[in-house]
């Protein structure tokens, strides 16, 4: 092989990830796409209009380019019988890197977004403690804080893939209930220590200040570990849709237990068995027993481009890219297949690889106009490998539709249409 050749590393056109940085070089050899060859004689560059007049002034609060206004979260129609209930999904297919902008971070609310005045908000820690305490927002801002990059994923993300037939969907509509951010806050153990944990305490019961007063029970041993009281997200105060002025953040675990608008932490011997840990967010198995408090999110990846409902307009080189994450560690490896899982090649992980955070992966792919099925398969630092959809559904059944983390298959047909399929 000469330096100019692109090394095919798996069937159907997957190219060695090392070529990621070299694609701009001339003389790509036999596999280089026609679009990369030669100059377009009809192209004449001129100085554009915006280079000939002064632009807008600096602003107090920034906004994005009007040419990117089509990047929106996706949410269902409001249900008048369930005011404020619902979710909005991140446009994964349009995003890059491993941090989700706050305005596009997914949301899930059970009774709408409360309009909380931080001067009136209280956080109470009580129950099995030496001294019950109440904290104001101002009090909490005086504590030392830590900043960590974590993913957050709704337990119901990708749930439609438990269904018997593949839905016509996009990366956003099928998998958009996952996002990544830097969260800054106070280790919860600091505040629990201040109140003085009673030796009989085994659980914390966290309650939000929304209209549903949504609550979840969390084992004390986990609460004393890496859980934080988050006050900032990507450097700015947590937004109302994410729990302003404060939320619990439980890294790696189903999003619902990171209770937003946190106002109460009660330490008890037993869990409360809230509605959202009995009726909802529980996993009924094939034997009809149901697992409760299934917190960690599985080892998972999804290709975000090319992805469902996109169209490849012409043959040639594409960067197959996506995100991978694990609730049990960091992402060690992501493999990609272009032939429905028969052959695989290692993708480049071109972001940080930190614990319980999104990792970005990429691999170049030569689409020669034929049928292809793109898949990605993540492996985490604990050795957990993302399962196929078939093996996951065979093991778990589909009575419950939480915690789907199987391999996503995107089929590309000869017209370039990309679609969700089961393969």
């Amino acid at each position, binding site marked *: 092989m000469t330096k100019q050749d692109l090394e095919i590393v798996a069937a159907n056109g997957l190219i060695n990830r090392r070529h990621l940085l070299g694609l701009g070089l001339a003389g790509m050899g036999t596999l280089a796409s026609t679009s990369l060859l030669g100059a377009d004689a009809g192209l004449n560059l001129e100085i554009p209009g915006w280079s000939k007049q002064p632009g807008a002034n600096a602003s107090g609060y920034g906004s994005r380019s009007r040419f990117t206004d089509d990047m929106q979260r996706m949410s269902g129609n409001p249900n008048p*019988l*369930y*005011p404020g*209930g619902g979710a909005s999904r991140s446009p994964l297919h349009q995003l890059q890197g491993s941090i989700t902008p706050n305005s596009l971070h997914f949301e899930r609310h059970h*009774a709408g977004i409360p309009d909380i005045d931080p001067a009136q908000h209280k956080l*109470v*820690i*009580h129950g099995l403690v030496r001294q*019950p*305490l*109440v*904290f*104001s927002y101002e*009090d*909490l801002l*005086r*504590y*030392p804080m830590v900043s960590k990059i974590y993913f957050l994923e709704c337990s119901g993300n990708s749930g439609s893939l438990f269904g018997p037939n593949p839905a016509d969907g996009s990366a956003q509509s099928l998998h958009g209930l996952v996002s990544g951010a830097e969260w800054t806050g106070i*280790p919860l*153990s*600091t*505040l629990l*220590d*201040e*109140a003085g944990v009673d030796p009989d305490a085994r659980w914390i*019961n966290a*309650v939000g200040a929304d*209209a*549903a*007063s*949504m*609550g979840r029970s969390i*084992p004390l041993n*986990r609460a004393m570990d890496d859980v934080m009281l988050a006050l900032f997200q990507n450097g700015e105060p947590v937004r109302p849709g994410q729990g302003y002025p404060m939320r619990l953040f439980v890294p790696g675990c189903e999003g619902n237990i990171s209770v937003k608008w946190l106002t*109460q932490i*009660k330490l*008890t*011997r*037993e*869990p*409360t*068995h*809230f*509605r959202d840990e*009995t*009726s909802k967010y*529980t996993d*009924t198995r094939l034997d*009809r*027993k*149901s*697992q*409760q*408090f*299934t*917190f*960690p999110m599985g080892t998972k990846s999804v290709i975000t481009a090319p992805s469902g409902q996109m169209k490849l307009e012409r043959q040639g080189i594409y960067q197959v890219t996506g995100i991978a994450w694990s609730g*049990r560690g960091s992402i060690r490896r992501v493999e990609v297949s272009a032939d429905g899982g028969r052959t695989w090649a290692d993708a480049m992980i071109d972001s940080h690889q930190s614990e319980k955070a999104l990792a970005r992966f990429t691999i170049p792919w030569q689409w020669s106009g034929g049928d292809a099925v793109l898949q990605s398969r993540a492996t985490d630092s604990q050795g957990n490998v993302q399962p196929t959809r078939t093996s996951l559904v065979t093991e778990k059944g*589909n*009575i419950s539709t939480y915690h789907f983390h199987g391999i996503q298959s995107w089929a590309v047909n000869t017209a370039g249409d990309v679609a969700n399929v089961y393969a």
Partner: protein
Amino acid sequence: MSTLKKLLTASAVSASLAIGLSAVVQAQSLGTPINESQLQGFDLIAQPNGSGYPAGGGTAMQGKAIFEIRCVACHGMTGEGTSANTRLVGGDMQSEERPIRTVGSYWPHASTLFDYVQRAMPADAPKSLSSDEVYQVIAYVLHLNGIIENSLVLNKETLMQVEMPNKDGFIDSSQAL
């Protein structure tokens, strides 16, 4: 010793070493002490062990009237629901088909019904029911499922004795890695 106290102590020690001061910062919590009695109108947590229940009570017969005004828009006249998520009655976890999961067939604790209705229902006006009304309306939902008699006075004592059909149907996975 808490993180904050360690921090304060450490900085006090280094300050005194550096410039020869003998003063130390008084370590203290930044939270304000409060008594449980001050949280009675705030703490809505009601557990299966009987903790957290207010006084009051009532029967399914009384609850029917409340249910038919406040609950039927979503849950239907007899708890049949207007969607899978709002169905309250029926179902069988052992059915051949995919089981229909409701309060009657799925929920393991009657306490959850009290806790949830008190904090979150009705969805258009949460926390607008009195404690008596909460006991009464959940008595009606339990009665619609054939779990209690129409005339049982549901209160903090009797609620604890209600056995749900699926009480043994759950496995605690909280310590799974």
